[in-house]
């Protein structure tokens, strides 16, 4: 019991590292605030190309892109970019490497979600919108996309929670987000309490979102 308290819930160490972990949390939140919107935009573009493009080639390329990046573990992608690119004499700053990896991965995942949403809007919506004189683009922007997004809101939230969790991967390339800071503190103090504290912080931030998601999902299922 003493060993557990000392190593996992060491109050003294908690107090000592808390300010550093908060700084790590800021980086985690900042990183999420960067990669989630970028991923959402990329995903919407992917979905629009997959469903609206009249070119078969484009649609096939998008399908291949989505499958490849859904099959590739994000950590493999990140390490490939971070450790591979310098060999081409391309010096990619850490944050850029991480952001690029996340964009490629997220656009595929969000793209699938948006595609499902776009396909859930009945064809008649487009026809009705066009018949009122809206152009195709106007119909998409004002009629189709808003309905599509509302239909897949729980999935978008679910994926965004996954993305926040995925930011821990950036610790592998030494970006000082929450997990990285905690691991450094652990190595320095030779005590895993900082990691436990980091886990508690992740819980505090993400648990409310997971609860909300659970509710949304079950409500959706009951309605269907």
């Amino acid at each position, binding site marked *: 019991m003493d060993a557990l308290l000392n190593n*996992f819930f060491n109050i003294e160490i908690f107090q000592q590292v808390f300010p550093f972990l908060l700084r790590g949390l800021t980086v985690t939140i900042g990183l999420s605030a960067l990669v989630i919107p970028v991923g959402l935009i990329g995903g919407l573009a992917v979905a629009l190309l997959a469903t609206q493009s009249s070119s078969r080639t484009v649609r096939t390329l998008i399908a291949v892109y989505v499958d490849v990046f859904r099959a590739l*573990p994000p950590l493999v992608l990140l390490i490939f970019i971070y450790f591979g690119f310098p060999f081409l004499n391309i010096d990619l700053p850490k944050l850029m490497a991480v952001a690029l990896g996340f964009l490629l991965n997220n656009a595929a995942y969000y793209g699938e979600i948006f595609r499902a949403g776009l396909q859930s809007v009945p064809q008649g919506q487009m026809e009705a919108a066009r018949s009122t004189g809206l152009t195709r683009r106007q119909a998409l922007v004002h009629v189709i996309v808003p309905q599509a997004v509302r239909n897949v809101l729980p999935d978008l939230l679910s994926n965004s929670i996954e993305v926040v969790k995925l930011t821990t991967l950036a610790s592998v390339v030494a970006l000082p987000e929450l997990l990285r800071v905690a691991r450094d503190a652990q190595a320095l103090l030779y005590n895993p309490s900082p990691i436990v504290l980091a886990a508690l912080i992740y819980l505090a931030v993400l648990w409310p979102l997971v609860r909300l998601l659970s509710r949304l999902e079950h409500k959706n299922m009951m309605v269907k």
Partner: protein
Amino acid sequence: MESLDLFLQTFFNLEIAARYWPDILSGAGITIGLSIVVTITGLALGLALALLRALQRTWLSLPIIAFVDVMRALPPLVILIIFFFAFPLIGISMSAFTATWLSLSLVLAAYAEESVWGGILSLPRGQSEAARSTGLTWWQTMTSVVLPQAVRIALPPLTNRVISVSKNVALGSVVALSEVLNNAQSATSNAGNPTPLTMAALAYLVIFIPVMFGARRLENRLQWRV
């Protein structure tokens, strides 16, 4: 032309590929093996938890909900690192394989429970009432009437989750599990050339694209046509 050459020599160097091919292959063996084990234990545990929750006893449901929530809120890498780096300090040491297996199984179990439970909830109450009124026991009702339907409903999220958790076997590289990514990283630093990383990426595609297609087929086949 020269830059294309540089690119090929860097990422698709055949000589290096030939030299490190066995490392990637043995890593792929571990990745595939661990994915299968994680899938089996994760789904079995998730199903068991959903069944327990269906008993509708508060003292059982509350801990299950708490477990599921925690496992869904914590990043898998954090769970893995706690198992591998923190547990030894309280006298519980485990190999990189065990730590990866355990953490991913728990994560998959949580998601599987959530999906199957969602499936159970979405069934009309009349299903289990009708089953019970024909004289089936609670257990028979669950296994022959409720679960087969619930699992079908839950299939798309389940297959997605199985794939994404299996891909997380790559996280094992952080605790030096000798799966594909880890082997490729050491090969890359030994060779001074990232071709092994390309091979690792290709290995993951070769492993997981067929799984994704298989999952899609399974979903289409078992989908109810209403």
